[in-house]
């Protein structure tokens, strides 16, 4: 298991509700775009529960195991919390980990779906960037992915390339909290 480091970008691809989750393929393409644009600047660690491990494997599979690690189910909760404090940044959905990272001052990029009103539910903080889609059906307040009449267009239409560039702009903007 890779050691925590300041070069580590945590990827939290799953919340406890699929309607809030950016597509797995988008997370995979995001990592590919980041590696293409920033080389080995970062190590990427997927975090989540044991039950999410198989799905996380779909994200990690194309990448060298030395640069992209699947840590889902491998970290005890205190280890996750500790890693949030040492990592470079976290990229996640509207999920508990994104909120926890934001509250702790960790650079957080939250890909926020349209089921909830982002003004009410977004992770807050000066070190947070919220990526969302302005779309006519949001907020839908739906609970289940299968109920979405537009197949989660609010998340599907957020392109991995856009998020990759936004993330690099974000981390290049100013020294992190830890560096300051």
């Amino acid at each position, binding site marked *: 298991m890779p050691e925590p480091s300041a070069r580590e970008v945590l990827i939290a691809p799953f919340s406890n509700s699929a309607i809030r989750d950016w597509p797995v393929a988008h997370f995979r393409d995001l990592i590919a775009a980041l590696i293409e644009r920033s080389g080995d600047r970062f190590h990427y660690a997927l975090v989540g529960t044991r039950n999410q491990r198989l799905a996380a*494997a779909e994200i990690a*599979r194309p990448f060298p195991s030395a640069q992209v690690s699947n840590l889902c189910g491998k970290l005890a909760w205190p280890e996750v919390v500790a890693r949030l404090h040492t990592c470079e940044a976290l990229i996640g959905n509207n999920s508990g980990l994104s909120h926890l990272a934001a509250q702790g001052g960790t650079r957080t990029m939250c890909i926020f779906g349209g089921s909830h009103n982002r003004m009410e539910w*977004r992770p807050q903080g*000066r070190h947070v960037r919220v*990526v969302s889609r*302005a*779309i006519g059906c949001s907020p839908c307040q739906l609970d289940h992915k299968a109920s979405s*009449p*537009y197949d989660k267009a609010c998340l599907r239409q957020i392109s991995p390339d*856009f998020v990759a560039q936004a993330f690099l702009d974000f981390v290049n903007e100013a020294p992190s909290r830890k560096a300051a």
Partner: protein
Amino acid sequence: MPLDEQQDVLTRLIGGPAEPYLRSGRLIRQVGSGGAALPVEGADVVVAAHRLQFAEDYRRSLQEWHAAVAVGGHLIVTVTHAFLYERQMFLPSRRHPDQQRLYSPRMLLDEVEEALIPNSYRVRLLADDDREYDYTTPLDHNARGHGDIVLVLQRIVAPNWPLADRPPTFPALLLGSEPEYAFEPVRTRVERDRGFAPQRILLVKPDHLGDFVISLPALARMRELFADAHITIVVGNWNVDAARETGLFDEVIAFDAFPRNSSENEPDPRGTVAAFHQRLGDRQFDLAVDLRVDPDTRILLRDVRAVRKAGLGTRGQFPFLDIFLPIDFNRGAPDMAHEFRFAPGDFQCQGSAARHGFRIASSADTVERNCAVVWGPYRWLLPGRYIFEPFIEGRDGSADGKVLLDVALDTRRVVEFAFSGGKMPQLPFDVGPDGASFEFRIWTVEGAVSIDLDFFGGRLIRAGGAGVLHQNEYQQLLVELIRLRTMDTGAPTEVYDA
């Protein structure tokens, strides 16, 4: 790989759990220590013995070995067992310092599931190979015998269906599209929270003395939060001295948005907007706050030259507000009794009851069994205390005649009254915490003479309850929200979009 090393690998597998698979094909390739790539496909059996544990990129290694197996062929992977060969749980390996990982059977399978596409393989064997293992060997000696984990995968043709999520419930027509956004173009945006430090603050508090006094804690809190800011307050003439005496403000501006005596003259804050701006002159502010709770003065902020504006209400009501504390401006209603009026048309009737113009009339001539002749309106009621007052008149009094009036909640009778004419009754009842469906009924009574009556609907009264905050609390909540949006988390600002 040197021939003797090859032979050693194959020899070790003979007699072990993987032997049947080793003998399953003619073409056997072995993964060498030099890391040379195997030809893609073609091999009946690929053997990777004690290789994976040294591979830096286990995913790529497993993917390459798997790709070298012909469909139907087998990949045999062996690694040393952490509990047998190493007899430790943590790296570094005592026996092979360059070993990358220690393995249990689960860990080996984990790496396979991560590396290989689901359903491109089947696990045919996962076993501990502890043949001739001497469990009595002391720790300071290398254990003798086999101490491996053996994994055999069979390559299969992946089916043409992917592992799918639950299918959508909407027709395919809508899937893949997205709705147009009525008020702005569909786009992806990035937002961040930004705080700001207002240096010039305008507070608007044009109401009367009592209101001003109630607001003093909120006004003091503003000064506490923005100790170094220049704070201007606008008050009615009648509060100028009181405002100056607080010592909280750098400037006090007198402006009467209301008549001094509102009970004698009709207030019209909206009509004073132009005069208000004239009074402010060229002043510019970083933050303008309307601390009045009632919405009628919010309009005064609309054209104030301020970077940000704050007040109670919603942006839907006041689009010019940047910081708004949503409140229900009908907040007084829960403290008052609610009254609902029902017309005869809200009720059904049958039997001796029939509609006549704007009433339901029931005749005493027909003696019936216990029978509801009027019923309705089936309205859902919130929890609370109620009284239903049916508008009912007996046209022809009869000492023995009667009908039964009742109220039912969720079809269960909760209150009843025998009506023989005379004064309209009141039927009190309570609705429990889950709410209930309300029904009122008029019954004829078996064995009893009915009465001639007219039914005109009724009035349902709900008792009020405390559902408001104190004016001071509303204002202090607004001030705390201002603190959050300026000094703490900040307010969302769009960074860019695409």
